């Protein structure tokens, strides 16, 4: 009897030893999950991360901690996440379009499509063509006509060269065969302020930036085939029949490459539940954004397609 107990204990110990690798994944999550955001707190991506962190209560048993690691157009945070221990406790949430473009334009070993596993997409940031309320331009066609009438006379503002707003704007100019001088500002807020102050003739900035500024700005079109899910009053380039480059920025959660598949799929499910929570949408609404969920595989496909679209534009940047 005693011997049998002993053997059983040994067996159990062995079983624990053997399965401990697997149980690491099965027990996940046991500790708080660090969600690296490679931008300063306060931006669009950060708003998503903080909403996820709040809405995760009740779905994940552990807190989701937002860790801002800004710098180098988002590559600083990506660098720290790519080398993190692949145990499911460090993941990265980033603006997919900007991340993709910065890996293409800056000197880095990170490949947006290959260096990480795609967990899921939870949101979407879209750029749009805006003018100040006092502007003579009432429609996109007015802008195109004015640019054609006097090439190079117009100034347009965006939030930094190489970002998806800049590339989106370049795509609009290139596909319509027009020419305008860009004036980069640092980030969305200063760009919006400059546009309100009529320092530029038009600007490409996040469509969500219109929220609360309807009296100062007029959004002529959002840079996509269909209208934005939240800012529904703004027409899209697609419905206006105006050619554009499909550059947007899906907000995607990435995991380090070697994270166990069980953990990635558990997180994917958790994110799906979080994204469908009404609380999540409520947290985002004042920012003019909303939940847009896609599975990891689909998010990767979206980003690959964007890479092909953006490549010629990016090449024109580095001339």
């Amino acid at each position, binding site marked *: 009897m005693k011997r049998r107990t002993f053997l059983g204990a040994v067996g159990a110990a062995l079983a624990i030893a053997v399965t401990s690798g697997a149980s690491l994944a099965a027990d996940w999550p046991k500790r708080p999950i660090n969600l690296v955001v490679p931008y*300063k*707190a*306060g*931006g669009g991506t*950060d*708003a998503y991360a903080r909403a996820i962190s709040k809405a995760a209560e009740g779905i994940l048993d552990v807190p989701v901690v937002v*860790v*801002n*690691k*800004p*710098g*180098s*157009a988002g*590559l*600083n945070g990506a*660098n720290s996440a790519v080398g993190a221990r692949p145990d499911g406790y460090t993941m990265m949430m980033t603006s997919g379009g900007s991340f993709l473009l910065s890996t293409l*334009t800056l000197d880095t070993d990170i490949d947006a499509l290959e260096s990480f596993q795609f967990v899921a997409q939870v949101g979407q940031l879209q750029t749009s063509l805006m003018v100040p309320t006092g502007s003579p331009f009432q429609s996109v066609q007015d802008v195109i006509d004015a640019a054609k009438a006097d090439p190079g006379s117009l*100034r347009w503002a965006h939030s*930094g*060269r*190489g970002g998806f707003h800049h590339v989106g704007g370049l795509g609009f100019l290139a596909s319509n065969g027009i020419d305008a*001088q*860009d*004036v*980069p*500002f*640092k*980030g969305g*807020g*200063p760009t*919006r*302020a*400059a546009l*309100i*102050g*009529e*320092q*530029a003739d038009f600007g490409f900035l996040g469509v969500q930036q219109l929220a*609360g*500024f309807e009296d*100062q700005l007029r959004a002529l079109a959002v840079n996509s085939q269909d209208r934005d899910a939240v800012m529904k009053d703004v027409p899209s380039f697609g419905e206006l029949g105006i050619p554009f480059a499909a550059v947007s920025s899906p907000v995607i959660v990435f995991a380090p490459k070697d994270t166990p598949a069980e953990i990635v799929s558990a997180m994917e499910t958790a994110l799906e539940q979080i994204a469908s929570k009404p609380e999540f949408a409520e947290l985002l609404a004042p920012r003019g954004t909303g939940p847009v969920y896609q599975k990891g595989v689909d998010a990767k496909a979206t980003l690959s397609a964007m890479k092909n679209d953006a490549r010629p534009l990016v090449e024109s940047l580095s001339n």
Partner: protein
Amino acid sequence: MEIFPALLSVVTDPTLLAAILLAAVVGMIVGATPGLTASAAIAMLLPITFYMSPLFALAFLYVIGKSGRYGGSIAAILFNTPGTAASAATQIDGYPLARAGKAGKAMKVATISSVIGDFMGDILLVAGVGFIAAIALKLGPPETFAIYFAAFVVIGSVIGKSIVKGLASALLGVLVAMVGLDPISSEERYTFGSFELSNGIGLVPLMIGVFVLGEVFSQMEERRKSAGRIDDNQTAADDDSLTWEEYKPCLPHAFRGGLIGAGIGVLPGLGSAIAAFISYGEGKRRATNPQQWGKGALEGVAAPEAANNAVSGPSMAPLLTLGIPGSTIGAILLGVFLIHGIQVGPTLFLTDKELVYRLFACGMLGIAAYGVIGYFGATQVARLILKIPTNVLYPIIFLTSFVAAYSARASMFDVTVMTVAGFVGWLMRRHDFNIAAFVISFVLAKGAEETFRQSLLMSDSGLLIFFERPIALAFLLIGCAAIAFRIRSIVKERRIADGELGDA
């Protein structure tokens, strides 16, 4: 008149009131401790405020700044070492008063004058900031550049003991600011292929380095040179009470100081120390008893103290409406706004007007708080500071600065930056370079370059854009006038402007 509902909402929030009270005490202690400045304390406390709500964080740091400027006068009067550069002028008459056994009287005059000056500054800020914000939206890159230009000129011409060293300090600040990505084309500059340097040099580690670590190093050196410095001016507190008859002649000096301080505060880059010296000089010129000044005149305490505190409020105007920090404290507060996702600049008054007025309300309550504590408790604060031995205090400060530098961005690289900046700050102090000019030009250079190049993009590289736009032209003229004015009076100024462009 948005300030009244804001005041009401702040007064009815007990936790916020407690935070203001705490900040007033912390600021006073920090300001009164020689070698610890309010900007250093704010830089070190910045990471803690990540966990507070925006209003809490801003009010806490803003009040520390105000009360720290006042606290500097305690050390200036009692120990003849200005707690902050801003109170260097206070020491001229404050210390003789302390030697004459009138330390308590002098501190009470300093308290009342600081409160008067600070309130004047804040009232002018509240009255004028909405107007400035309204026109700020119309200011584009050319106008903003002109304002930066004026600020640079003013720094360049008010740089303390040695003009050459002052200019060199400012130039070094510009050079360090260039490290990182080009603001327009995003190309790397001065990064030497280092990934970390491509982020640029962070303001917080740089400031903690030069202000805190550099100061600790300097103090270590001081101690070795003169072991056993004595503070023999702790006189019996028999002549501490202040009568209305005694303060009455100080009143015009306090009001004039308040106006001078407020006027200087609006211009970015000048700061409290300059305001204090100008007010002292102006006060002495107009005084009925100029021969008393410098030997222990109460008016000589009132004039600079009112001026250096009056800077506090108006210096928020360029920060909030244009995003141009006029002082080192302003630069840190700018970071707090950004961390909490509030975009400082012309649109601030459209998005977060209530928050701004609540912050102003907190500032006013903070003035009242340090006024009351200071009036009745300044002597106790001074005793407390004397009780903490420096061989306990400085190691703690030393350790805290490492933690603070790391925690701001969770980056070891920032710790390296801070350490290097610490040695640079120590060397600069040792050789009489101007640290504040270095830091302020570091802060201004980025914005100046960005707006200059944006302007050129707007005008197809034509420089006329700066002259065609009336507001831009006006500020350029102000800058040029400042140069002319300084050159004219530089000989006269150099006698009294021994103080540096300090802890503004």
